[in-house]
């Protein structure tokens, strides 16, 4: 049987971890409108993660709910790409990362609308609409910052320089990816890279930003090897559920 459960965890964890990171901006946005925007994008991502984790729990068949999977797995059991867990940094870092991820997410979800698993295809069809809105919003901001003042350009370029080495992992495919792709359930992420690069390049050139030369791409998140940042994020996200197991509100 195709390893759909670990595949769904990868999809869900990217969105849960990045959604939680984005939520850190709530009340701290540079302007009110952007505070609202980042909280809204965060809500979409956490919503998508909830649906994906619920499906993952059903596929696993061990009775784990979406909450059990979100709150009671440790960092070593999380399967998100490293890019999602990096600290939010300044606004340029957050927006550049969000563009890089959202373009990936849009392509990935578009492909997953054709999944042989009807539940996953349905979740993907919703997520496509949300991701498209996120891409448009972030692209607009990246151009505004990159083609803006000297300082906004420098910050956007620095963010791109720092984040680029984390993009390679998004497109790494291992046995899990290939098996679910062969079964018609998932998509092999390596097939998305050229379309992703074309879309990202289009925005970056309009933003007058340059893709850095990177000798080594970071990796490990898909196998549970994370940066030190994930544990801190999870401790904050999980403390209430772990301190009061079974609590409802």
């Amino acid at each position, binding site marked *: 049987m195709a390893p759909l459960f670990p595949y769904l965890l990868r999809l869900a964890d990217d969105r849960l971890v990045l959604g939680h990171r984005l939520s850190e901006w709530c009340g701290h946005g540079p302007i*009110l*409108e*952007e505070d*609202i*925007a980042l*909280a*809204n*994008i965060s*809500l*979409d*991502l*956490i*919503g*998508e993660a*909830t*649906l994906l984790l619920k499906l993952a729990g059903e596929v696993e068949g061990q009775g784990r709910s979406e909450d059990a999977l979100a709150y009671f797995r440790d960092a070593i059991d999380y399967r998100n790409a490293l890019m999602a867990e990096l600290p939010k940094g300044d606004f340029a870092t957050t927006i550049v990362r969000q563009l890089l991820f959202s373009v990936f997410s849009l392509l990935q979800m578009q492909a997953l609308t054709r999944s042989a698993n*009807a*539940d996953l*295809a*349905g*979740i993907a*069809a*919703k*997520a*496509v*609409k*949300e991701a*498209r*809105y996120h*891409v*448009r*919003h972030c*692209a*607009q901001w990246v*151009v*505004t910052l990159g083609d803006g003042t000297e300082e906004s350009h420098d910050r956007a370029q620095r963010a791109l320089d720092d984040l680029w080495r984390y993009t390679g992992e998004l497109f790494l495919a291992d046995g899990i990816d290939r098996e679910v792709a062969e079964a018609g359930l998932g998509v092999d992420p390596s097939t998305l890279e050229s379309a992703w690069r074309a*879309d990202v390049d*289009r*925005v970056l050139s*309009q933003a007058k930003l340059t893709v850095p030369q990177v000798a080594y791409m970071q990796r490990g998140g898909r196998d549970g090897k994370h940066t030190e940042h994930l544990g801190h994020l999870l401790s904050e996200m999980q403390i209430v559920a772990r301190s009061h197991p079974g609590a409802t509100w």
Partner: protein
Amino acid sequence: MVARTIPSREELFAILDEVKDPEVPVLSVVELGIVRDAVAFDTGVSITVTPTYSGCPAMREIEAEIRSALQAHGLGPVEIRTVYAPAWTTDWIAPSAREKLEAYGIAPPRPAAELDELVTLRRAKVRCPYCRSTNTEQKSAFGSTACKAIWFCRECRQPFEEFKAI
């Protein structure tokens, strides 16, 4: 013994048309297209709903209100099924409902097929629901709820919300 007739799909939809969306109280959950199907059996009622956004926090409240509206008509037990396909689109909002939205002060959604390029610094104009001017500007792509954006009318100097097209 009281003979109970099983309500038709239309009768169920009429009851659900009384349930308003908590975040857009001028529209019912039927007008918004959230209710996809309604079937009554001897043993209860089954309602199929679809969320507007994956993370829409109003869905739980909407489900609770659907239950209580049906129970108020003596119907139950109520089973609520959530489906994600086909994905909800603002194109399902009926023309009459669009007029209600505008009268309420929310600019109705444009056709969802009107997809812009990835990079658009200025989007198409939205008509001000108060003075009908198109001399408006988007202030924020996101608004007070997942389904709305914030605009400003340069003509009547009034901020207003737009129902995002998805």
